């Protein structure tokens, strides 16, 4: 029983990281129908920015988190303006291939700038491990959970209560109709990339704290898994990405705990295959019927 709860706790910590990354995938897909494969690399850049803020500028975890989020927001907007915007009316496959190109460019650009060696992440989490009924919840886990929950609540607030959030939902539902409302579609798309990338940046920093090492190719696997999480929840659906991420994290923890830890990375793709076979629209997705 304790073992079970322990695994759920671990799974939720891991899953909240996936969820934060998956949110960016799903938001961007929702608005421009593009799987932004460079998203996992924004996560990596976020982890490094957090690392430099802490190690070289001796900042605390929260300033580092905020700096990383802000820098990633700008980075995400730049990627969109430079790489994707010129292709907005091109075929989707052209944009997708470009995204893969951007991804490789960021990965190997980072290696060019700082080398490929892994980097130990400083442990600056000001929290102690917590022991409840025999279950150990590490300070890192508590931190991850707290940060994720705050960011997700904030995101829900932005998307549902603010003007830019409403514009984002309108553009993602019907771009031309949104234009007829006077919504500036380019700015709205930029804002979506900014928010999604900021979440990835935050995920990068807390990932670094949790796993204690980072490297320039660290974004690939979590990026792919977050993509699976987004598809699992229903791509384009924000609560879907949250649930999909958490679920995937918990599934992975259980697979590891059952003694198949070598299969950990594979299981995400088994989930992907299963969801595509059984429920292609995702857990939260539905086929919307149009009324005439």
């Amino acid at each position, binding site marked *: 029983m304790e073992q079970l709860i322990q695994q759920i706790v671990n799974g939720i910590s891991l899953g909240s990281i996936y969820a934060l990354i998956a949110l960016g995938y799903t938001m961007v897909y929702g608005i421009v129908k593009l799987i932004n494969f460079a998203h996992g690399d924004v996560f990596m850049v976020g982890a490094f920015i957090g690392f430099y803020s802490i190690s070289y500028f001796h900042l605390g975890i929260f300033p580092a988190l905020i700096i990383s989020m802000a820098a990633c927001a700008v980075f995400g907007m730049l990627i969109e303006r430079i790489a994707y915007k010129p292709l907005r009316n091109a075929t989707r496959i052209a944009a997708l291939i470009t995204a893969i190109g951007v991804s490789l460019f960021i990965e190997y650009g980072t290696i060019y700038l700082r080398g490929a060696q892994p980097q130990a992440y400083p442990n600056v989490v000001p929290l102690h491990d917590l022991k409840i009924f025999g279950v150990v919840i590490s300070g890192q886990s508590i931190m991850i959970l707290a940060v994720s929950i705050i960011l997700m609540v904030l995101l829900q607030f932005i998307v549902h209560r603010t*003007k830019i959030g*409403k*514009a984002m*939902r*309108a553009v993602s*539902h*019907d771009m*031309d*109709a*949104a*234009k*007829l*409302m*006077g*919504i*500036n579609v380019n700015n709205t798309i930029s804002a979506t990339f900014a928010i999604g990338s900021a979440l990835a940046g935050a995920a990068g920093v807390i990932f670094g704290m949790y796993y204690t090492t980072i490297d320039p190719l660290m974004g690939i696997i979590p990026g792919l898994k977050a993509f699976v999480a987004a598809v699992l929840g229903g791509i384009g659906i924000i609560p879907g990405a949250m649930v999909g991420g958490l679920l995937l994290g918990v599934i992975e923890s259980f697979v590891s705990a059952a003694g198949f830890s070598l299969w950990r990375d594979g299981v995400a793709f088994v989930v992907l295959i299963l969801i595509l076979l059984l429920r292609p629209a995702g857990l939260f997705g539905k086929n*919307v019927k149009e*009324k*005439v």
Partner: protein
Amino acid sequence: MLKINDINVYYGNIHALKGVSLDINQGEIVTLIGANGAGKSTLLKTISGLLKPKTGEIIFENVNVAGKLPQLIVKRGISQVPEGRRVFANMTVEENLELGAYLRKDKKEIREDFDKVYQLFPRLEERRKQLSGTLSGGEQQMLAMGRALMARPRLLLLDEPSMGLAPLLVKTIFRIIEEINKTGTTILLVEQNAHMALSIADRAYVIETGKIVADGSAAELSNSDQIRKAYLGGH
């Protein structure tokens, strides 16, 4: 108020509007009738800035707005109720109306306009908190019209408001269009239902394969043999 001079619009190689010119005076209801694919929606999209004309001018209140971004055109006072309503199905009725007022910052007047829209369409007030995707076709049409009015347009473009609605509902919608017009909003109405459109319009244009082929007062066109044969069922 609106003066379109000889615009040409292309979809790739397809010449969709061939030298269309059209005038709308302040306070009028002008209707544009024509068959499917004649270019009616293309013209409205071009006025709203969703499409750019290759040549020609669109003069609205003495400013050429041809090829300007949609948000600038909405800001200048032209709103469109698009074909097929295009309401934001995943948002509530209230949120749809808020988006209609997206460019406005005058909070107090926006509140007043909410009341005005709810007065015009009491059904929408009853369903304020409902997702607009769950509304009936007629209610969605009302919402699309209310949403456009939230921008306080001086010129309202309506694209096929009667499409897919029961005859009784069509009558209601047309009565409301007349009411909107009486409050000082100029209207350009695109319709396949020529009979209904001519019954409320002051003037009309007939468009065929991208060209204006006839124009005149609504009464004149209703009585023209040619128009009766082609668009009014030949009675």
